[in-house]
């Protein structure tokens, strides 16, 4: 059954007149309807209405995004399912250039009149804005691709997995934690499916189907004597995968260390069993002595440091000042890039941007302004060599085409520059986690991401984690708590003294990278192998209140 059967019945005389051949049909809809995509031919017709309407009002460029955004959340605690939620949002965003200025309008009414009205509003906003323009928008050339499509290479669509299976998994995880001695556990499964269609006056009609999954939990243990409590969060990563992420395979488990670690696939039940043991260890762990330590950082932790200290400052919109009022600017100013010798990190540090990486959150075939995605260097042998740019910025860094970093989090949001997957490349020499720890005299091995904060130009940061292990003379000497490290981005990356090899490479990431006004979220992955950073300042975060 095609979704076109019922979609456009709203206010719908006009729509059905405009779209001959779309049957008007109103029988009850089975929930499985969620799985049927909107018909591509219908989306093309709707997009053409918007493109033509904007052109007739004076737009010199128009792009249209028709988005259907599906989410599912399963929320549990202990033995209880607190909520099961399906959300759906469907509508159209129209972006135009008129009088050299951008304008945007969005509507959730997809009849011909409402689309034409939204297109006219976008053009009128652009014309109003052009009064304040200092320089007309300059778009990097982009060829039209005609009618094309891209689907995330998932193995098992999580929306097709029965609710019961998802509930049973979370409740078995909770049960294992409670039996292991946890006081509380909260666990959640987030599923996302973006079905998005892009059309532009360049001649592209692009249909894409994107999936994301994030299973996560927090285990809490309370010390009844002191009323102190500790938590341990899941070591999962949100990924651009289907339900296969939750079907563990032996080859994806990294064992032998302080806790099982996971690449490509995640064993949620096993991680919960580890978590409940570790949260009890945390209660009685030694409070850290502040000072300088060599840090060995697991990819489940390091992804967030990469995100904040490399991903954000290399976003060209920040460098140029477009985010000055909110997310901030960047210390990676154009003169540093132009010099071709800005020493961002040690020679070991190679960082790439990659919008094509399979299984990553940022992977798409085409970005939200119709640019085919790619992979490029940001930091090469420690030197800043490039940024992340979109079509109206490409000329500023001498590019003839966009790097494909444009994204909007919804049909109702205007697309703008968002972070590509930004990843630290593995070390070229064969090195394991143990090899990295063995070289440390006084250090801390950190697993999992915790508290995080960085300034608006991305110099000064502070990070915590989930698990902290003291390293003394090359060996793990027990668990620590109350740990956070503070550093300066350039000093930190120049202190990178070792990176484990490719066999340890794993992805971490976030569903909720925030930027822009009005605020938008974006999902992005960051890969790395375990890496070592020498002589980093560690503070003790314990305090007393009344």
């Amino acid at each position: 059954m095609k979704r076109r059967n019922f979609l456009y019945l709203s206010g719908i005389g006009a729509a059905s007149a405009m779209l001959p051949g779309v049957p008007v049909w109103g029988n009850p809809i089975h929930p499985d309807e969620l799985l049927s995509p909107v018909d591509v031919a219908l989306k093309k017709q709707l997009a053409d209405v918007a493109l033509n309407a904007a052109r007739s009002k004076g737009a010199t460029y128009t792009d249209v995004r028709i988005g259907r955004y599906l989410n599912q959340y399963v929320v549990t605690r202990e033995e209880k399912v607190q909520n099961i939620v399906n959300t759906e949002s469907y509508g159209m965003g129209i972006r135009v250039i008129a009088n050299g200025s951008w304008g945007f309008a969005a509507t959730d009414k997809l009849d011909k009149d409402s689309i034409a009205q939204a297109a006219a509003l976008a053009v009128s906003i652009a014309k109003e804005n052009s009064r304040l323009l200092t320089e007309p928008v300059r778009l990097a050339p982009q060829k039209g691709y005609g009618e094309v499509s891209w689907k995330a290479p998932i193995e098992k669509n999580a929306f097709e997995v029965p609710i019961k299976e998802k509930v049973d998994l979370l409740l078995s995880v909770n049960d294992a934690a409670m039996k292991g001695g946890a006081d509380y556990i909260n666990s959640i499964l987030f599923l996302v499916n973006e079905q998005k269609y892009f059309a532009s006056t360049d001649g592209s009609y692009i249909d894409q189907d994107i999936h994301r999954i994030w299973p996560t939990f927090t285990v809490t243990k309370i010390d009844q004597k002191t009323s102190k409590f500790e938590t341990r969060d899941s070591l999962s990563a949100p990924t651009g995968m289907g339900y296969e992420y939750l079907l563990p395979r032996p080859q994806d488990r990294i064992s032998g260390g302080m806790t099982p670690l996971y690449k490509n696939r995640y064993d949620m039940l096993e991680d919960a069993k580890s978590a409940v043991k570790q949260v009890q260890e945390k209660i009685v762990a030694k409070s850290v002595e502040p000072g300088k330590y060599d840090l060995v950082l697991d990819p489940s932790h390091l992804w967030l440091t990469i995100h904040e200290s490399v991903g954000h400052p290399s976003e060209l919109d920040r460098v140029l000042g477009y985010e000055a009022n909110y997310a901030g600017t960047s210390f990676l100013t154009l003169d540093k890039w132009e010099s071709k010798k800005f020493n961002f990190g040690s020679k070991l540090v190679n960082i790439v941007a990659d919008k094509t990486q399979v299984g990553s959150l940022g992977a798409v075939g085409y970005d939200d302004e119709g640019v085919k995605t790619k992979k490029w260097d940001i930091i090469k042998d420690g030197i800043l060599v490039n940024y992340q740019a979109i079509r109206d910025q490409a000329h500023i860094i001498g590019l003839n085409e966009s790097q494909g970093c444009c994204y909007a989090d919804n049909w109702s949001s205007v697309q703008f520059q968002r972070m590509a997957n930004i990843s630290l490349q593995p070390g070229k020499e064969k090195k394991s986690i143990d090899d990295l720890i063995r070289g440390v005299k006084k250090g801390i091995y950190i697993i999992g991401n915790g508290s995080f904060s960085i300034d608006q130009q991305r110099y000064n940061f502070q990070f915590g984690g989930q698990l902290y292990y003291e390293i003394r003379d090359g060996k793990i000497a027990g668990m620590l708590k109350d740990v956070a490290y503070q550093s300066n981005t350039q000093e930190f990356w120049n202190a990178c003294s070792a990176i484990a090899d490719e066999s340890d490479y794993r992805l971490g990431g976030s569903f909720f990278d925030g930027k822009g006004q009005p605020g938008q979220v974006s999902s992005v992955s960051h890969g790395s192998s375990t890496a070592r950073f020498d002589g980093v300042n560690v503070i003790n975060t314990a305090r007393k209140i009344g």
Partner: protein
Amino acid sequence: MAILTKEEARALMQKVLSYSKADECEVNLSGSDGGNIRYARNSVSTSGGTSSGSLVVQSSFGKKVGVATINEFDDASLEKVVRRAEELARLAPENPEFMKNLGAQTYDPPPATFVTSTANITPKQRTDMVAQSLRIAKENKLTAAGFLENSAGYSAMMNTSGVFAYNTSTNVNFNVTLRTEDGKGSGYASKGYNDVTKLDVASATRIAAQKAAGSSAAKAIEPGKYTVILEPAAGIVLLENLYFGLDARSADEGRSFLSAPGGKTKLGQKLVDERITIYSDPNDPDLPTSSWNGDGRPMKKTTWIDKGVIKNLSYSRYWAEKKGVPALPGPDGITMVGGNASLEDLIKSTEKGILVTRLWYIRPVDPQTLLFTGLTRDGTFYIENGKIAFPVKNFRFNESPIIMLNNLDALGKPERTVSGESGVHAMIPPMKIRDFTFTSLSDAV
């Protein structure tokens, strides 16, 4: 979607409930029309207009519950979303914490949250306001980045047990950052109201301009403990973690800064300086908020912290029933009581201290002490002998709002303030605090 009148919303929700085959059904409906304009590098950048609506349907069979949402409002879509919620409810295991529908409620007359002049803002008006801001930036040889947004919206709720609630509201928010051309100085101002006639874009931009020019060539001083004056925009981002964290359940469960040994809580205990009183009042003329909360409970004036003592904690309906106490919804429209002193008065009374315009990137470090970290931003100044002496480089802090409110020196006059972190508005006074903990320096401007 357009803003539905009370009667239109009622009719639409009655239609949704008419499709229900569940034991109980609850519907939340909302919609908004709005526009925004964003500028940077002294020129307009992105902007737009959005019209959207959302329908949330919760269906339950006994204690089995499912929720589905949609933003299409034709009859077939309305029926589809009801069926989808029911299907999820049938598939869900029983939730022992599920509460049956609220019965019919009586709400106070709606506070003055909707202002027609704000609802009627046009793209031209937005552009005109931003033009004033850009003019001031250019006159002062500064680079502006800013944001102006307005919205008008409604929210409504109905269930199969007699609840019907409806509210409309308007909002306009303006914030601007001005930077010196050499990138060495930066200043910020932020204002937000229900009523656009209260918004003075030019005056806010001038404040940001003064801060930008005055903060250029900042000196580095050693991190450590300092007396600070937190402007309301700086204070709110720490305080909101306190007043939005006054939840009974997490305190009772032993996993909150309000937990006490032996399974007890700090309810009724003095936690902060006796000059601290924090309440919420939906009818506050300076900060009107909805007369009902998201789950249909009436919102009344509530004192949360009274003369330093934790007076009330919020209770979900489930937790209230379990504990045998009234189900008190969490706060909206917060006021922190202050005095009559202006910011200038607080500066004049300070021998040595640091004036903080804004705090940024606030993140929790330790939930049991409510320790947060973050940084100063867009105008940090050293005060000597009652005057601003020179700008200082930004700091990272590690501080708890509870420790901070025990180190209170003085409070000024509360003003309507927009949180740069959550976007929530509150009435917050400027505060003078002793021994505020800065842990490192930042090179950021």
